[in-house]
């Protein structure tokens, strides 16, 4: 759609309202299916989302085919991460020592609250009233912006996608492309009501230009800058940040104070290990060989100071989970989201969590088993995610394992335990089973016992029901081949 006056727009070209994410109700389990249904009820949004992310998957495949050593790289990446995680204490201490030697101040935060308190304290001690920041899923996880708002600090997201979401008071929906669920018409509406752009102009270059122009003075006047980190290099104390916009470098190099918020799992041992990850990250995420900017910070800029806040927030505990610790290998590339057929049709906001898509399904229950108890069931266990993961996390197998855990913990409200028990008992007893199945016209109802409490009623909403045949295989066999029925 190009710009034009409101009155010129014919009815069928009226912008489709943006579907909003999962409904939050205290600690009640997120109903991902309900939110996904609403996303699907917005076909233009759903179509754009699915096409866009499938394109990223295809570009990733192109990069894979152009690199003969691709599978070897995945194995190396996985091995380096597993080694590092199994010696995480040693590498963290090594990083801290080297960073300190470079003039970096290192802080340790047990949890989200402590992380936020450290950041607030730093900003207040330096008298910083505005903070510019680049993308950091960790800060989303910690709910940093809310605590900063309480402390009277204005936060400006500089990444275009994050800024759109911030101005729309909505969470990012994807770890790499935070506003991928939005159409240009949605962005035009957000910007028009917040940064004063033309509401009738939804041309992406215009909108991006509007954000650039509006943000630049905020960057120049900011009291402090914050970045996340894609990698921490233990042997040199380096913080590595990968962006396409260069906004992390603006945040780190202009204000005097540079704060890095980073999860403890982002460690890798040596500079040479970095090559593996830098070569795999953008190829997996966007299908480009490298991000436009790959920055290595080993100390404060001239005249500045640099602080690194190492955050645990449940990671050390997850390290001890035998079936799930390898999820800590994650480099937040988003390839699993791009390939996941469920994610592409549901939108990332349908998961109601900081981390969505396949990786979200396996780490969110560690943050809140009750609230995210439905998520591992928002999957067909197809395994595509596992195959695209650059660090070889067996995501779909962990999804399967989580289902068992949640059932054991009685966290599966929508699946009637009684129905499963009854189905299990029926399948264990051949004579009873046979009678149930071969009652006239009852096969459908009987087999629905392994579906959920409302059986195949839900099946029929968008599909025709299967046609029950005249006789079962069992009946045919004994009618035609003899023997006891």
């Amino acid at each position: 759609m190009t710009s034009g006056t409101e009155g010129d727009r014919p009815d069928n070209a009226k912008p489709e309202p943006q579907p909003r994410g999962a409904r939050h109700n205290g600690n009640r389990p997120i109903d991902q299916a309900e939110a996904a249904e609403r996303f699907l009820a917005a076909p233009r949004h759903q179509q754009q989302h699915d096409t866009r992310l499938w394109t990223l998957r295809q570009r990733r495949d192109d990069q894979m085919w152009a690199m003969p050593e691709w599978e070897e790289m995945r194995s190396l990446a996985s091995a380096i991460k597993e080694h590092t995680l199994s010696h995480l204490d040693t590498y963290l201490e090594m990083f801290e020592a080297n960073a300190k030697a470079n003039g970096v101040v290192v802080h340790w935060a047990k949890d989200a609250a402590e992380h936020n308190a450290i950041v607030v304290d730093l900003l207040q001690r330096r008298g910083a009233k505005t903070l510019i920041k680049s993308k950091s899923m960790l800060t989303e996880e910690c709910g940093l912006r809310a605590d900063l708002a309480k402390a009277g600090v204005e936060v400006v997201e500089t990444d275009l996608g994050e800024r759109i979401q911030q101005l729309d008071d909505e969470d990012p929906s994807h770890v790499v492309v935070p506003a991928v669920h939005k159409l240009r018409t949605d962005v035009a509406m957000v910007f028009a009501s917040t940064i004063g752009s033309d509401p009738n102009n939804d041309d992406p270059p215009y909108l991006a230009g509007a954000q650039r122009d509006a943000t630049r003075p905020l960057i120049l006047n900011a009291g402090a800058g914050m970045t996340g980190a894609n990698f921490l290099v233990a042997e040199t104390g380096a913080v590595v940040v990968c962006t396409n916009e260069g906004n992390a470098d603006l945040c780190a190099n202009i204000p005097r104070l540079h704060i890095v918020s980073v999860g403890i799992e982002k460690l890798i041992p040596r500079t040479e290990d970095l090559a593996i990850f830098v070569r795999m990250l953008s190829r997996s995420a966007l299908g480009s060989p490298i991000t436009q900017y790959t920055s290595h910070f080993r100390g404060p800029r001239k005249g500045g100071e640099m602080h690194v806040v190492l955050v645990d927030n449940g990671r050390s505990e997850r390290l001890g989970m035998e079936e799930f610790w390898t999820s800590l290998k994650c480099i937040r590339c988003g390839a699993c989201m791009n390939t996941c057929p469920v994610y592409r049709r549901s939108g990332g906001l349908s998961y109601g969590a900081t981390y969505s898509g396949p990786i979200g399904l396996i780490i969110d229950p560690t943050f809140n088993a009750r609230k995210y108890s439905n998520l591992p069931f928002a999957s067909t266990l197809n395994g595509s995610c596992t195959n695209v993961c650059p660090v070889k996390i067996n995501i779909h197998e962990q999804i399967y394992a989580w289902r068992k855990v949640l059932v054991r913990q009685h966290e599966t409200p929508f699946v009637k335990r009684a129905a499963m028990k009854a189905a299990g008992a029926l399948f264990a007893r051949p004579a009873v089973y046979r009678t149930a199945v071969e009652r006239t016209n009852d096969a459908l109802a009987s087999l629905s016992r392994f579906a959920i409490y409302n059986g195949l009623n839900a099946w029929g909403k968008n599909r025709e029901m299967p046609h029950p045949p005249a006789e079962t295989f069992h009946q045919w066999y004994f009618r035609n081949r003899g023997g006891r029925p």
Partner: protein
Amino acid sequence: MKIGLFIPCFIDAFFPEVGIATLQLLERFDLEVVYPPDQTCCGQPMANSGFETDASGAEALFVRNFDGFDYIVGPSGSCVHHIRHHFTGVEQTAAVNEIRSRTYELVEFLHDILKVDAFPWARFPHKVGLHNSCGTLRGLRHANASELREPHFSKPESLLCKVEGLELVAASRPDECCGFGGLFSVVNESVSAKMGSDKVRDFAQARAEYIVSADSSCLMHQRGCAERDNVAIKFIHIAQILNGAAS
């Protein structure tokens, strides 16, 4: 070679023709094929929903029923994937592991064990879209997965190529999940149905007259979507084509 014929629960109840075709096909190779009458289910529906202990009765029964066969062969990749890679509701005795290791899905049995090189009785002069179910593709490694940098191979394709007149057409998203996913099909019904619709439309655009699969569960789901969307495409199990089904 004594074969235990494994007929999954939903094939017994909804797709007996698939079971019949499987039996007849195996018998064409002069194998002794026995159908244990007391079989019910492999336990997958309960296990995939996380109810491992509730699957144990079915799994124990499976082991009892299929003791004493050289091979256990069934026309369902998802069930065989469950048996070989999960099946942990029962105690993992040597006997249980023996049964598990002898369980084969039909296509892999024909391709890997019997190494069938011809189906002279089969003729299927149609454009056919091959759908590999995810458990069969990525779990049983029926064919190469598009996400991996590996050479192209496909056991079902290599069998179907031996059927006279059959022309394979390729979907644009060759191995995207069709959305059945067992419990998923009713718990996330709208996404499941959309995935099925998209899959059917993809094959229709490739001009497939039939969609063939080694998994009836996927076919059942896709057929439901096709009928609802009024897409004129037919569905058939690979056992039926290989057994010489007329179209």
